[in-house]
């Protein structure tokens, strides 16, 4: 850490330095640790299956997550068909609730968390930090296979007697483990076991990401020169390390309640006419544990998206990211604050109502750093040189969607407004907008952006544009009107929504509209998958650095990067990743490895 401090001083100086004046401007500190050799695979199995190369593990994570996510997508189609066209009799109530539950858990944990941290984290951290691999490649491999095991256990729950749990993704006891809920025996047990496996696997990966970012950066790569993508993934990983243990203990305690008859979360109750032997437990305790994990989880998904989208916007508008330092501090501040807001999910849970004052205040405070991020994104566009390619389009769509979802967060965070809106479709619309669609738009943008780095080929532009417009407009058409169902008062998690007197106008037409939009948006994702497969084999060959980006992942000796990433010598970093359109420079970008002596005359403000 010693040399970081040394560099921060330089990075913070902010003085316009005419590099011609400095004789030894290209000086870098010596390498602290000698380069170490990596594990080299000897067979197809150890290269592609039990791989210890972070790039491969990243792709493995991403493919597994996307595959699981496809199941989540199909489940959502079935649910939406049931809600909009109850006359068709597509689902029984039990199956409906099971699908709701599995859809939620799959999308939040097994798709988004795994994709951002396991997928993009593994792919990008070593490359962007300029290291050869993760700190602990073997543990990294184990992390992925634990994730696979977790997914298999989750899928197995579809085939056990009673089926998967239908407790809602929040798994609130007592209903999660009493007989009125589908899958209250084996289903919930497998779900909890799967989560425990996921947390264990994630901890292995997470330690890797943290240690690699802190200890394995190449020469000259100070913390304040890291791309915001790394900052986002790094902070999210730290959050996950603190948040997942709460889920872990909650899961273990509920398993004990279920299997051994303990009473952590179980008061004395009469379930479906049967007096249970439990006594004295607190259902609200579980909710505290769950949301102590659950709220940071929102940011575990959001912070990597924030980071990635910052880089996409900067690269594709050929402009320095606006307010880099503010962006870093906002990420860290949001991460820290996210541990003090969890009970805003519980305003009407029956906890002491006086907590409402505290949690409403902390929740609205977190809006300030979040707003700063939005301002800085749009200020990066201001007077930029904006290329409207696919990564940029997805980034713009992200800002609109995230803005919308963030603003509705101000409704739900404000305790009074939450009372009529909680547990209605307003909540469903809000969280899908802010942590479903918005991060997914970033995922798509990121895939269009980094696909050439992984495969050496470009994704097809035409298919991409169709995919973009349907996904963006379609998902907005799904979730924007859904807020208004919440205003009407339609509760969430209803198998059937009859027309009741509280609906001044029937909600059924709106439901049919939303469902049709959802089917179309879902179908567009199949086109995207086709594009991935088609372009990986037959796409246009990519140039070395097709977007003219500055960050290290585009600067490897081979493209796609080979095992060990950097060939013989590790890269040397002389500046941050955002030197775009620097006055006096010949090109509109200066890569991180360009020494000052190579761009004489450029007026770099900070590096």
């Amino acid at each position, binding site marked *: 850490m010693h040399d970081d401090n040394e560099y921060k001083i330089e990075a913070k100086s902010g003085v316009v330095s005419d590099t011609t004046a400095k004789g030894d401007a290209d000086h870098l500190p010596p390498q602290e640790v000698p380069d170490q050799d990596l594990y080299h695979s000897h067979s197809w199995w150890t290269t592609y299956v039990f791989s210890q190369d972070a790039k491969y593990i990243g792709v493995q994570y991403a493919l597994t997550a996307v595959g699981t996510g496809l199941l989540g997508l199909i489940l959502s189609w079935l649910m939406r068909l049931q809600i909009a066209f109850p006359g068709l009799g597509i689902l029984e109530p039990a199956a409906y609730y099971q699908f709701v539950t599995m859809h939620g858990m799959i999308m939040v944990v097994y798709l988004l968390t795994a994709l951002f941290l396991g997928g993009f984290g593994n792919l990008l951290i070593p490359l962007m930090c300029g290291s050869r691999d993760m700190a602990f490649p073997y543990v990294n491999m184990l992390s992925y296979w634990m994730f696979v095991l977790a997914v298999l256990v989750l899928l197995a729950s579809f085939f056990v007697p009673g089926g998967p749990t239908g407790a809602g993704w929040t798994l609130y006891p007592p209903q999660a483990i009493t007989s*009125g809920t589908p899958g209250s025996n084996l289903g919930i047990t497998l779900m909890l076991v799967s989560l425990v496996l996921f947390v264990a696997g994630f901890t292995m990966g997470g330690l890797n990401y943290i240690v690699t970012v802190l200890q394995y950066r190449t020469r000259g790569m100070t913390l304040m020169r890291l791309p915001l993508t790394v900052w986002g993934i790094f902070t999210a990983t730290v959050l996950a390390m603190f948040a997942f243990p709460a889920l872990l203990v909650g899961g273990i305690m509920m398993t004990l309640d279920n299997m051994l008859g303990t009473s952590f979360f179980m008061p004395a109750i009469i379930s479906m*006419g049967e007096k249970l032997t439990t006594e004295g437990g607190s259902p609200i305790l579980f909710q505290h544990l769950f949301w102590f994990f659950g709220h940071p989880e929102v940011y575990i998904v959001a912070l990597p998206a924030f980071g990635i989208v910052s880089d996409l916007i900067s690269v594709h508008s050929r402009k320095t990211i606006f307010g880099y330092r503010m962006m870093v501090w906002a990420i860290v501040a949001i991460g820290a604050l996210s541990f003090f807001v969890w009970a805003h999910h519980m305003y009407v849970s029956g906890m002491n109502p006086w907590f409402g004052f505290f949690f409403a205040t902390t929740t609205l405070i977190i809006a*300030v750093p979040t707003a700063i991020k939005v301002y800085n994104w749009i200020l990066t566009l201001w007077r930029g040189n904006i290329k409207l390619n696919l990564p940029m389009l997805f980034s713009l769509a992200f800002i609109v969607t995230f803005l919308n979802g963030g603003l509705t967060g*101000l409704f739900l965070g404000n305790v009074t407004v939450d*009372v009529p809106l909680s547990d209605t479709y307003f909540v469903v619309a809000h969280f899908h907008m802010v942590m479903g669609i918005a991060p997914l738009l970033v995922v798509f943008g990121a895939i269009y952006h980094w696909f050439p780095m992984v495969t050496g080929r470009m994704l097809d532009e035409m298919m991409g544009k169709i995919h973009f417009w349907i996904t963006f407009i379609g998902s907005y058409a799904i979730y924007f009107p859904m807020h208004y169902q919440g205003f009407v008062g339609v509760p969430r998690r*209803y198998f059937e929504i009859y027309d009741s007197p*509280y609906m001044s106008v029937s909600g059924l037409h709106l439901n049919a509209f939303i469902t049709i939009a959802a089917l179309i948006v879902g179908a567009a994702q199949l086109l995207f998958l086709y594009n991935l497969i088609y372009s990986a084999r037959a796409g246009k060959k990519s140039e070395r650095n097709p977007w003219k980006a500055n960050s290290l992942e585009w600067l490897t000796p081979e493209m796609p990067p080979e095992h060990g990433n950097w060939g013989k010598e590790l890269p040397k970093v002389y500046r941050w990743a955002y030197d775009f359109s620097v006055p006096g420079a010949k090109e509109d970008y200066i890569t991180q490895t360009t020494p000052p002596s190579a761009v004489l005359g450029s007026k770099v403000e900070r590096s």
Partner: protein
Amino acid sequence: MTPLIVAHILVLIAVGSVVFHFWSPWWWTEVASNWGGMDTTILLTFWITGVVFVAICLFMAYCVWKFSYQKDRRSEYQPENKKLEFHLTWITAVGVAALLAPGLVVWNDYVTVPKNTLKIEVFAYQWGWKYRLPGEDGVLGKTSIKEINDENPFGIIKEDKNGMDDLLVDSDELHLEINKPVKFELRSIDVLHNFYVPQFRGKMDIVPGLITYYWIEPTRKGNFEVLCAEYCGTGHYAMRGRVIVEEKSEYDNWTAKLITFEKFLAENSKTKENKIKLVKNE
């Protein structure tokens, strides 16, 4: 051409959202309780957030159109602007405070129950509702889940004298007197539920092992549907009830027909045929 299209679509999204907001038929039903303040807070939030949403969408549309890529142009080089960042930060903080303050005032009213409010027990189970009203003493008798059986479906502790005159409502239909504040004492015997009447705006989870509460003052006569608003298992969507808000005279007629716990016990021991069956395994 493309930048112009993208800019137009961004404008359309902003305008379309506003149009949908004002002209779509989906809006909340008229409030029927004293919690109009919640509606006001929502509207205030709508105005502030709506202006921000439209402003930022239009700003983006302008940028996309005005600053679209040209090969011979360079973007402006401005890594930071501390003054601008500072101003944006405090303007946001003020806006957020303007939302929070009225919200907290209304919340304070919501969690502070006025004195001498009529207390009514809402009794939730998978999947239905029952109610219990205090008798002439105005006090609900103490209950315990262990006391619940066929003779004592509400589990009222017989040693507690306050319970004997309690009025039992073995139906999912509750009557309320207009303009008379009422505190719902919420009780569940199995899992989480939530007593929710959209027109009243109020909401609170019902937690087994606890008595939670909220209060309202009905301000409009009518026949309202009760919805369970906390997921409670397969029958959640069908867990409905009714609340009828009426004049005092009609309300008194209704309470006059209700049976006290004392009378219920006496009748049950006579007929041996229980009207209310709850517990199967005893």
